[in-house]
């Protein structure tokens, strides 16, 4: 007999958009959600947040520093003053607003909305591969182009359960209606799952394909000037989550030479040619895929633990 996991209800949910101020689908979705006044009849309490309002106003990724890198333990506990970078102040504000320590307002699940210039389709990023709620949500959303990723970094996840919903391709500073609709539907499906879960539905266990990051690959660069000397190869461009084999083309140099993948293990590329990652020295990331077994799950009921 497979074990059934019982978990507390997901009573309060936060939906965050504009963690990066030029990723527009989440920004417009949060604006639409904020227009609808809560009337107390919603089955789940949802707090909707514009994470980086100043960056959203200017339509830039960040004003002084990437907000999505300001949620490490060190960043959240560092003393801040008026002269601290805007995003360092903001991350502490968000942590106080949404984090588990702010008892009256603590959220049980946080969903952070993102866009990418890479052709990822809709993917969900979780921070632990034992996060059964996130994995059940992934399973619930599982349509042909929806995939999961596990990351081991401290992104915007002050709560115990955090999911980033990443949808591409969309240029920064642009909202594409197909992408907006996909994000709206993704959030709706997530809320549907939570409502069903809270009302006692038993969700069958099963398996989920999870991609775990192995390494980042930078562009080839000039050894002196550090300027990039190649573009992602046309055979690899837009082929996120398509298996990359040793010997497959990776970069097409401006000189005309093709550079090939020299790793020994076939891996899955993702975030191929994300605009914001040039400055981070990342042309693409590579992941291993594995199947994760998830148990059947239902809520503990009305008792919160």
């Amino acid at each position, binding site marked *: 007999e497979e074990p059934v996991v019982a978990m507390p209800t997901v009573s309060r949910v936060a939906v965050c958009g504009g963690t990066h101020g030029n990723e527009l689908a989440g920004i417009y979705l949060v604006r639409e959600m904020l227009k609808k006044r809560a009337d107390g009849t919603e089955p789940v309490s949802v707090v909707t947040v514009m994470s980086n309002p100043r960056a959203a106003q200017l339509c830039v990724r960040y004003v002084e520093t990437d907000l999505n890198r300001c949620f490490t333990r060190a960043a959240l506990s560092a003393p801040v003053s008026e002269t601290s970078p805007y995003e360092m102040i903001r991350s502490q504000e968000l942590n106080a607003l949404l984090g588990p320590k702010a008892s009256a307002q603590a959220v049980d699940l946080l969903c952070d909305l993102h866009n990418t210039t890479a052709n990822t389709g809709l993917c969900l990023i979780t921070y632990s591969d034992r996060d059964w709620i996130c994995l059940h949500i992934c399973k619930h959303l599982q349509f042909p182009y929806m995939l999961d990723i596990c990351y081991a970094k401290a992104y915007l996840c002050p709560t115990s359960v955090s999911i980033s919903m990443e949808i591409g*391709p969309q*240029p920064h*500073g642009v909202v594409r209606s197909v992408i907006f609709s996909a994000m709206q539907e993704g959030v709706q499906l997530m809320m549907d799952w939570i409502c069903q879960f809270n009302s006692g539905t038993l969700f069958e266990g099963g398996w989920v394909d999870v991609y775990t990051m192995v390494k980042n690959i930078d562009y080839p660069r000039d050894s002196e000037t550090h300027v*990039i000397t190649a*573009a992602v190869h046309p055979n690899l*461009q837009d082929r996120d989550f398509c298996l990359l084999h040793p010997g497959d083309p990776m970069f097409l140099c401006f000189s005309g030479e093709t550079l090939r993948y020299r790793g020994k293990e076939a891996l899955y590329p993702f975030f191929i040619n994300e605009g914001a990652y040039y400055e981070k020295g990342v042309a693409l990331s590579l992941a291993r895929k594995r199947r994760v077994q998830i148990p059947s799950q239902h809520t503990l009921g009305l008792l919160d633990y």
Partner: protein
Amino acid sequence: MSSRTNVSCLHEAKRVAIFGGTHGNEMSGITLVNMWKQNSAEIERNGLLIKPFISNPKAVKKCTRYIDTDLNRAFTPENLSAPDVEGLLYEVQRAKEINRMFGPKGSSDAYDVIFDLHNTTSNMGSTLILESSTDLFNLQMVHYIKKAMAPHTCSVLLNEHPQLKYSTTRSVAKHPIGLEVGPQPQGVLRSNVFESMRTILKHALDFIEFFNSGVEFPPCTVDVFRVQERMDYPRDTNGNITAMVHPHLQDCDWEPLNRGDPMFLTFDGRTILYEGANTVYPTFINEAAYYEKQQAFTTTCREILSANAIRKAFK
């Protein structure tokens, strides 16, 4: 008895510039110009002075469109004649410098040709932008490029509209040409877009070299799209957009848009239709930089321009 057709004799085009980084986040041109500044072998042509040039270096360094104001709108007579004082916007200062180096605009000392390299988030493919329907040199060059690029399509956009025309960086030259290749997100370099732009320039420089060597180019016609009207997004009283480009229009640059066709989709799912009386051909559909310029797309109409035969004037 057959009569000889008119041949227009034009000045040799000796001085050519290639501008990248007029917008600091449009990566194809920036990458090409930096590459050619380091090694110009690929762009060298007999008898031609060719200068690759980064027009907005501060914006390029920050990978942003502009610092204070859009350089590609800054070449107005007022700006170019503004006195050198403190507090001038960076791009106005830069416009004046560029006018000194490559102009003065409108004078006989100005550079013969400037290619200004741009990218767009719109699905415009390879586009050549003209500012005049009577510049024979440019018409013949564009005709040559289109033929050389075939079967790859090069569309030609003509912006001669008295109100919508703007003072571009390249307008300093006698023969300004805009190269616009998309779709490509800002800050991103896509290999296929990069190589298309590189190939267009190769053919353009070949044309100029042939022209300067005395080759006569027979009369030709060029299919163009002439700019008509800017269409903004629907907005609320606070100026925020209330709808997105409709999925049926998204990525359909250069395709006909007829009365009754879907145009916008509101955030709450309502379709807004195009109500114009005539069929138009939209372009610059959903260009990221144009949200702030109140432009969801630009309408154009199709036209065929004619050009006389041309050859270099003998001294």
